[in-house]
């Protein structure tokens, strides 16, 4: 709230020469406000990839570039592994040793996970991978390259940008542009609404149930899980909107990260609309190198499954995330295998003749599958997740007392506000089908736009939760 306007103002006042260096320093300050010591990790990653990029640029043959690519990948994944996965692997191995009656204990390493490490390592890896493939020329300007790695709007939770798109933007001078600033602020406002009015409100209900799931069965578990679906969407897409909007104010274009994912009609469509920058990263740098779908069918299935499991592991060093990823892999495979059969059923029942009804059914079904998978994503352990899965039924709504002042440990008014805010958001999403948020109300009378955004600002001020609630994806 304070940092951004100051940085923006100084940025626009500075001459072209000073702009990028100022933005770089501001980005380092932004990162160091969390834990200053960990800035060295970004610096190491930046230096290694910068040097590897330059060295690869000097090699004509792919074989010559390979050793530098390996240095880059091993050092980036090494950092990621050390800080994020080492403890997970040592505790998992210890558990395995215990099962096998092997009396050996690997030490546990409790390192504080650097904020955004998964995001910036993937971003820098895409840079060296693109140079290796000959799709990109190495960046010789260290300042611009460092800014590509640390650009503060998207540093800690994406979108994971590609060098081919972001680096050239640092070459040009960005000037104050009224329309860009307004569009960016509109997007930031919408992101803020999703984060502080919806996500942080839903967090109270979700945290309460998921911190002690065994206290509940049936409806409270279902409500908390549905609430988590919206919480994680509003939290993450809210952050993405704020990141994209703030970059836009400064004059930079970042890629879209979400396109109303809960309106998807299939799991594969969901993954084209959810965390787009990560899905496309996995597609370009893992799925296609594995052979994609241009291989024998069993191998194709294997490729799909591996990508989803790795994606799960990317989200967190816990078996819950692995199961979540595997579940999505399973959904995708079943969806592919049963496509013909499902089409036959639809034709037989006549459902395919009712286009709207059919679409609605598909959206609801996809949403249910995705929501079910979130149980594993949110649960504190596999044991908790299985408890929840096995206690979703029977649905007994008797605990919903109309006269009750408290619902799942929160004032009942919080519940109503949360539900109304979700309905409001989904209504806006429906209106948004053909236009982006920042371009909404361009055809309506002039007064509509200020009234809508004024009301949005008022709702944020009135119903926003302004405690220090970190964005969920900062931890990944």
């Amino acid at each position, binding site marked *: *709230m*304070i*940092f951004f*306007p*100051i940085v*923006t*103002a100084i940025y626009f006042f500075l001459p072209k020469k000073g702009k990028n260096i100022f933005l770089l320093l501001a980005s380092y*300050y932004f990162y*160091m*406000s969390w834990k*200053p010591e960990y800035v060295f990790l970004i610096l190491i990653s930046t230096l290694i990839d910068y040097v590897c990029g330059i060295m690869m640029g000097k090699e004509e043959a792919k074989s010559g570039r390979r050793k530098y690519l390996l240095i880059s990948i091993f050092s980036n994944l090494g950092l990621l592994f050390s800080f994020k996965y080492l403890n997970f692997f040592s505790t998992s191995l210890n558990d395995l040793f215990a099962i096998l009656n092997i009396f050996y204990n690997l030490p546990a390493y409790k390192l504080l996970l650097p904020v955004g490490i998964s995001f910036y390592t993937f971003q820098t890896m895409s840079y060296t991978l693109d140079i290796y493939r000959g799709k990109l020329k190495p960046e010789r300007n260290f300042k611009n390259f460092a800014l590509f790695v640390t650009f503060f709007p998207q540093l800690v939770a994406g979108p994971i940008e590609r060098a081919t798109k972001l680096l050239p933007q640092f070459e040009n001078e960005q000037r104050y542009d*009224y329309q860009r*600033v*307004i569009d960016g602020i509109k997007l930031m406002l919408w992101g803020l609404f999703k984060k502080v009015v919806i996500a942080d409100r839903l967090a*109270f209900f979700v945290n309460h149930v998921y911190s002690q799931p065994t206290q509940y069965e049936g409806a409270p578990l279902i409500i908390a899980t549905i609430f988590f679906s919206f919480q994680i969407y509003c939290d993450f897409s809210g952050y993405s909107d704020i990141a994209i909007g703030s970059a836009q104010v400064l004059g930079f274009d970042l890629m879209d990260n979400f396109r109303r994912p809960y309106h998807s009609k299939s799991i594969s469509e969901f993954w084209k609309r959810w965390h787009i920058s990560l899905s496309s990263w996995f597609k370009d740098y893992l799925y296609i190198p594995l052979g994609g779908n241009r291989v024998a069918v069993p191998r194709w299935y294997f490729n799909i499954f591996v990508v989803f499991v790795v994606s799960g592991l990317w989200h967190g060093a816990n078996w819950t995330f692995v199961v979540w990823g595997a579940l999505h892999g399973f959904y995708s495979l079943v969806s592919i295998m049963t496509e013909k059969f499902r089409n036959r059923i639809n034709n037989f029942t006549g459902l395919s003749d009712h286009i709207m009804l059919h679409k609605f059914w598909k959206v609801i079904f996809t949403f249910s599958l995705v929501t079910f998978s979130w149980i594993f994503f949110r649960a504190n352990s596999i044991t908790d997740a299985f408890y929840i899965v096995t206690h979703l039924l029977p649905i007994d709504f008797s605990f919903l007392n109309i006269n009750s*002042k*408290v619902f799942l*440990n929160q*004032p009942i*008014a*919080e519940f109503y*506000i949360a539900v109304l805010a979700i309905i409001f958001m989904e209504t806006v999403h429906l209106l948004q089908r053909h236009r982006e948020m920042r371009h909404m109300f361009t055809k309506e009378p002039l007064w509509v736009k200020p009234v809508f955004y004024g009301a949005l600002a008022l709702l944020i*001020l*009135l*119903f926003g*939760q*302004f*405690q220090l609630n970190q964005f969920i994806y900062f931890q990944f």
Partner: protein
Amino acid sequence: MKRIINLIFIAGVIVSLAIAVSGKIKGLGRFFLAEDYSSNGFEYGNLYLISGIKGFKQNYKLMNTPEMHTVNNAGIITMGDSFFNQGLDSDIFANELEKKIDLAVYNIADAQESPLQYFKDINYKGDEHKVLLFEITERSTLSTILSPKFLSVPDENLSVFYRYKEFYYRIKHKIFNNLDVEYFFKRNFIANPVRQTLKNIKFSWFGLTDPDIGAYSEDLPMLFFETEVSFNEMEKSDANLEALTENLKLLQNILLDKYNIDLYVLIIPNQYTIYSKYANKKIAYDGYLAKINGLLDKKGVKYFDVYGLYRDYVINDNSRLLYLTNDFHYSAFGKLLLVNSVAEKLSVVFK
């Protein structure tokens, strides 16, 4: 329209700069704080400041009697959290106790995480026998007494490395920690009235309070701190209770052996423990303090049963409030009730 938006943008930048500067330079910032936050000899209740609900605002005179003693010349030493350092409408606990007992009472104001650390830091010799009244709030018992720092006393406080580390942390905090800017942003004389108006609308229209207010009562009226409500709701394991009381026993033994100090423990009940029956959100009390008292008895740890004292007062009399209506600390009456009880028992000890 474009001109207006541009002006708003420029104004936003200027305000942001002013907030950043005033937040970082406290001497400057305090001139622009809202009245509730400026120190004018009064306080208005910490839960009122969190909630911002005007109906809960009350003035309490801030008493600041200067310290007359030292740890060496006092017969009784008091040490604890904010309850022992609170001087609203009455003097701090130590000074009130001194008025009732014929002994010098010294309060260790700069609370440490462990009494042992404090006595080590001041190189206390323990030539004379003294009494230490160690106070802790119910909601902090588990986190403080079970903390590894409670009984371990590292030597590093005196080392050169430690001093450099301290210096580094101070610099780091000054440059990168922006909580002071956030504090000023929310509490300056322009933002605070807006914030308060919105909070009052939320309360009067929807019955909603700040998330840090866990419950409230309109009959009493009283606000309750969220940490207390969630503490009372939390399940406490027998193993934790056992470990907690064992640590207190160890502390008692070390203090006596090493420093010739007799430890007395005072656990101040949560305001919510005493008054939850009036709250809009009622949680049946799990008898946590009674269980602790039972274990302390069993282990021979000396303590004052503050919970029993307050509970009995509420059951038998209840004509006056033991806690402030808009602050989680005890009222002047609650404090004096405790002071009298402690003075009465200590006078027997010192006879």
